[in-house]
């Protein structure tokens, strides 16, 4: 029914405070804005809070940030609930965000999702019983050239298929960190068979027409 999923009171911690490291980072963001415009730092601060607090923002953090920036709590909640990147309820240790927007879908994101279901036993919007994995569908993450893809933490895993997705998930289960980036052997978004232009370009050689 509702797209705003706020954790129920029993899951909400009573209080929240930035760690010294988070605070230092928050202060850096706040300092970017002129006096009286500190509210502009609300988005980075929410992100800092989310990173500090198991990848979700509790209401205590909303109130804490509101207090810190001198703004009403409802304003902070408005921002936090507007952007889907802020989680207002607990998520699994591994937060698997599968892009299912048109380019990824055309390139087989359905397969990626079915791999998730096969290896984790959960579908979009669900968390594994052990709390290790949460899978969600997301809108375009801007990596269409490497479609289909998924995001894990700050990393993109690209050029996926059912098999490579399964490999990644199994590696995560074992506690390993699989190598991010394209999973089909290509380098970043270069053509799969190797470069087709600038094949003779030698970055070490002086550029043509330069003075020295």
């Amino acid at each position: 029914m509702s797209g705003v999923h706020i954790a129920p009171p029993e899951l909400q911690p009573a209080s929240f405070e930035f760690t010294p490291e988070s605070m230092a980072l928050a202060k850096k963001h706040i300092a970017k804005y002129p006096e009286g415009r500190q509210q502009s730092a609300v988005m980075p601060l929410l992100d800092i809070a989310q990173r500090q607090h198991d990848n979700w923002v509790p209401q205590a953090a909303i109130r804490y940030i509101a207090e810190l920036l001198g703004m009403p709590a409802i304003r902070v909640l408005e921002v936090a609930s507007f952007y889907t990147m802020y989680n207002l309820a607990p998520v699994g240790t591994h937060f698997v965000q599968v892009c299912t927007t048109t380019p990824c879908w055309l390139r087989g994101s359905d397969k990626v999702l079915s791999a998730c279901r096969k290896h984790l036993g959960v579908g979009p919007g669900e968390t594994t019983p052990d709390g290790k994995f949460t899978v969600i569908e997301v809108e375009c993450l801007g990596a269409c050239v490497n479609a289909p893809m998924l995001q894990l933490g700050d990393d993109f895993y690209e050029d996926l298929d059912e098999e490579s997705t399964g490999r990644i998930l199994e590696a995560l289960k074992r506690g390993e960190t699989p190598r991010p980036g394209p999973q089909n052997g290509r380098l970043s978004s270069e053509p799969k068979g190797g470069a087709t232009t600038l094949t003779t370009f030698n970055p070490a050689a002086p550029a043509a027409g330069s003075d020295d």
Partner: protein
Amino acid sequence: MPTLTIDGIQVTVEPGTTVLQACELAGKEIPRFCYHERLTIAGNCRMCLVEQEKAPKPIASCAMPAADNMVIHTDSPMVKKAREGVMEFLLINHPLDCPICDQGGECDLQDQSVGYGKGSSRYDENKRAVKDKYMGPLVETVMTRCIHCTRCVRFITEVAGVPELGAIGRGEDMQITTYLEQAMTSELSGNVIDLCPVGALTSKPYAFTARSWELRKTESIDAMDAVGANIRVDVRGREVMRVLPRLNEDVNEEWLSDKSRFAYDGLKTDRLDRAYVRRNGKLQEATWAEAFAAVATGLKGLAGSQIAAIAGDLACAESVIALKDLMEKLGSPNLDCRQDGARIDPSNRAGYIFNSGIAGIDEADAILIIGSNPRREAALINARIRKRYITGKVKIGLIGEQAQLTYKYDYLGAGPATLKDIAEGRHAFAEILKGAQKPMLILGQGAIARADGAAVLALAKQVADACGLVKDGWNGFNMLHTAASRVGALDLGFVPGQGGKDVAGILAAAQAGEVKAVYLLGADEIDTSKLGSAFVIYQGSHGAAGARRADVILPGAAYTEKDATWVNTEGRVQLGRRAAAPPGEAREDWAIIRALSDALGQTLPYDNLGMLRRRMLQAAPHFGAVDKLTPAAWGNFGTAGAVSDAPFVSAVADFYLTNPIARASATMAECSALARGAAMPKTGTHD
């Protein structure tokens, strides 16, 4: 100034006017939901689309500034189609539950879909459903009906200054709510009900009690505080079903405080609906004749100086002048209307009214608030100060309680010492006042209802004189009253006559047995235990403190039940109208006093309201200038003297429970309990 053509009509408008406003100037009606004259522009409902020549698509007229040579069409096929389209979209998720919706019959969405809609929908999917939200005891929510115009959010943030409503989520999932569904704490929260163009926010106390078309509507004046807000009383049979604000730019604009709007259930409970006489120590029901006879017996043989009268906070001007005349006939100089003991100097009108007028706040560039919490004492005036505050053109200083007002102020001090510093030019704020074009001070009753009140009043006058608050065409000396009756009673001279006693004097004399009979005209805010063994006549509408102590009770009418004259804190004379009949045998108050005068053999010389009002005109000619402000001449008032160090305390401790009607109201009791349970949270509009 831009000149534009609207449907072939040329209009020239002020720079900064929107196309929508220009269309209105040209006499064209533009449908709208999110746009509201007194709120910022959101431009999110799209209902106000019009066609602009040379523009590629319809424009949202509410958000488009009018520019020179624009050619606008408001009735072209394109506009018609655009409106139909927008309306179809708005209705996609709006339930068709008008028959069970309290907004039905007075709903913008209903009216506009009839006026501009297509009559059918092509939408076959399931409608969205949204969980209802708790917003406190006053506002009922049916959030599925919400069309996300955000008027409520903007009102509570901008006008009320307590930003506690917001829109969480986005797109189809957007929901209006308070933070984690806490109750709203604003004392103006009821206005979101009027602002809501659909039935999403409706009145909780009024829920499912009446339909708008079966109500008899009477335009009247509110008596819950001294603002004199213009109201419309909606009545079915003899029962007040709801109270709504009426537009008056100079007083309440179009807002109403929650107390004025929701205390009406107090009109139905604890009412005095027949006369009572105390026999053998017990109050027993009596007929009017028996009650009058009891009064005659009680007053028999008493000299004038042994009789006293106190007028309460809800007494209308008619009853006050009638009682004053009666007391005069009985030879009593002991009358007073200042129940709180405020040391007001009644000899000079400029010394006890809000001289600049409430609208004057819109021009003020320096405001000194003394011993007042305007948010509790006059919520609408507080909103007016906030309105001025957000323009950034005013400096506000406060002496007294450091309350959470809805604007930022310089806290100058707690008590009279600071006021003295300003009066004698030793304080920095004195320079701010002197440097201002239109400086004003707002003197609360809390500052003068104390032993050194007269000296505080003199100090305030000294500030006004020394800092140039009174100049040509501007008088910035403003007293803020809390009682609807006060200024009217002062104007009519309901104050101690030659050698007469004031409230404190009357109570002391009653205790000492010197005053043997006291007439309480709805006076409930006095310490009735101090009335000693005096014979007490209580005339009023509610069985409150005064009635419990009374020996004879004369049941009167509440403010909605009589044609009455009210003078607000500005000195503005306004006419309240009878919306319903008083309950049982209760009568209009002046008529009771007139009938009693007959029974006492001191017949008052007026037989009808017209004659009485002529008498009022004679006593105070400005009563003829209804709805207008009559400027008062600046003069001397206050008595210079020593002041104590005691800090000023606001005259109103609990916004919701200031008079017998509000105290009888279950709704107000609930609001009060909620407010007491939680300390006023920070409003977020200041540090």
